[in-house]
């Protein structure tokens, strides 16, 4: 398992125009993000021979590669939902380490907010009638993702006494980080009382427990650690990766209080030879407040069941003991549908010390964790400066 640790590095990151971009297609946003990531790395498009993308359209990856004018010798379109790009980091690190490609581009964009306003929004679950979810969940009024995450939150509250005020702590901390990020969508102060007074979506989750809906995309460039040392920016080494998925529909989730981050996290820490106490900054998938709470437990930052008490007192906020989601996260920065790419971008910038007013002091190691589907998939990436 240790075969690929520290052999590859993130050499460049970039995001597209963000927020609301009604005049741009998702392909234009991917091209923008790619251009900015290449510039960040000091590389040219023709340096890319490994291509990684994920999206919702049929054969989207080859569409995107054609649009960008890339004819890769190594291609991966693994699509486990919002964790896709953490999966891609592991796959790219393996491919580069094996000599199958030298420079990998991971890229993605969606225009979910514009599509919604244009009434062109797609369903998360595509709705092929043979799908088990369509047959055994949809007829009861289930939809993805708010009610499915609400089922997990309700169970955690029952089993461990977690409170809605504790969940709200997570949204409040994200908002404090967003206030320090000029690119964040929601920067006004938010209190626990505000969260608890926001409209009910699906009990126990209220509006401010739920992520935003935004347009945007991002790109991440990986290459060998050796090559990265000669490039423009300080390399961000891939120390460890792990991936896991356990189910598709929420009724197939083995235990609604344990996400597959337990499995992916153990794998990533083992590969890195590190433990949670070695991590300086966390970038966790925050589709919902409950998603963050489960990851904190499952990744070992606190014992199972104690996530509620762990996040109390604004521990995740700027000046808190556990700096988490320093961009403002999906709850207050933006959420395009698959937030995992932005976790990697923010972590790389934190480790390079480029984050200005929201910079975590002496950040040497970061953990990114993507979650996809209804708590169905998890990809963990541990990054570091040495």
């Amino acid at each position, binding site marked *: 398992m240790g075969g690929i640790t520290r052999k590859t590095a993130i050499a460049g990151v970039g995001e597209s125009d963000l927020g609301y971009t009604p005049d741009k297609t998702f392909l234009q946003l991917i091209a923008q993000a790619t251009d900015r990531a290449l510039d960040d790395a000091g590389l040219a498009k023709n340096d890319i021979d490994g291509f990684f993308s994920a999206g919702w359209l049929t054969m989207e990856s080859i569409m995107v590669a054609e649009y960008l004018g890339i004819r890769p010798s190594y291609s991966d379109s693994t699509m486990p939902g919002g964790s896709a790009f953490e999966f891609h980091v592991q796959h790219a690190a393996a491919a580069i380490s094996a000599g199958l490609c030298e420079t990998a581009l991971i890229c993605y964009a969606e225009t979910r907010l514009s599509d919604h306003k244009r009434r062109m929004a797609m369903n998360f679950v595509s709705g092929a*009638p043979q799908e088990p979810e369509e047959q055994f969940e*949809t007829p009861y*009024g289930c939809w993805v993702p708010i009610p499915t995450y609400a089922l997990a939150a309700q169970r955690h509250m*029952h089993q461990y006494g977690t409170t809605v005020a504790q969940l709200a702590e997570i949204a409040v901390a994200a908002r404090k980080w967003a206030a320090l990020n000029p690119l964040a969508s929601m920067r006004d102060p938010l209190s626990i009382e505000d969260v608890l007074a926001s409209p009910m979506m699906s009990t126990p989750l209220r509006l401010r427990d739920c992520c935003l809906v935004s347009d945007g995309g991002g790109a991440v460039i990986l290459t060998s650690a050796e090559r990265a040392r000669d490039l423009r920016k300080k390399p961000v080494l891939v120390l460890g990766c792990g991936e896991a998925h356990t189910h598709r529909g929420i009724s197939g989730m083995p235990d609604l209080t344990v996400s597959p981050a337990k499995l992916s996290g153990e794998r990533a820490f083992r590969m890195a030879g590190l433990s949670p106490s070695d991590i300086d900054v966390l970038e966790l998938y925050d589709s919902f407040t409950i998603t963050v709470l489960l990851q904190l437990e499952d990744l070992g930052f606190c014992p199972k069941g104690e996530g509620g008490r762990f996040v109390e007192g604004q521990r995740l906020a700027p000046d808190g003991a556990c700096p988490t989601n320093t961009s403002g996260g999906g709850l207050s920065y933006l959420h395009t549908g698959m937030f995992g790419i932005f976790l990697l971008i923010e972590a790389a910038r934190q480790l390079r010390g480029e984050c200005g007013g929201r910079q975590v002091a002496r950040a040497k190691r970061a953990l990114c964790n993507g979650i996809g589907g209804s708590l169905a998939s998890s990809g963990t990436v541990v990054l570091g400066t040495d």
Partner: protein
Amino acid sequence: MTDYKKPLPYVHAETKPYWDAAKRHELLVRRCRACGRHHFYPRDFCPSCFSFDVEWVRASGRGAIYSFTVCHRAAQGFEADVPYNLVLVDLDEGVRVMSTVVGCPNDDLKIGMPVEVVFDDVTPEVTLPKFRPAALPE
């Protein structure tokens, strides 16, 4: 003819006995003859041991609420029902199913509440298994 506007299950050969039984107001689940485990949703094989020697057995129809949520934002077709509940029920046979609880105010739903199956003939062709609070065992 029906004016039922909600999504209906697409029934295929692998699951047809389940839906046919529901029409007869029976709840069937799959049981593996090799390892003895029940599973849900129904497959032609056992997802635990991968034996294809599986049988249909009639479930007791009793179980307990594992989790629930009251949806204040509707799925397509459910707009008039808001707020409506979704539940995950752990059947006594050891499998978990999604459904909805009828005959109980949403505010009274509790995790662990004993429930029993009822059958809702939503169209002439389709019956959905639903649940209601169970009478306590005698």
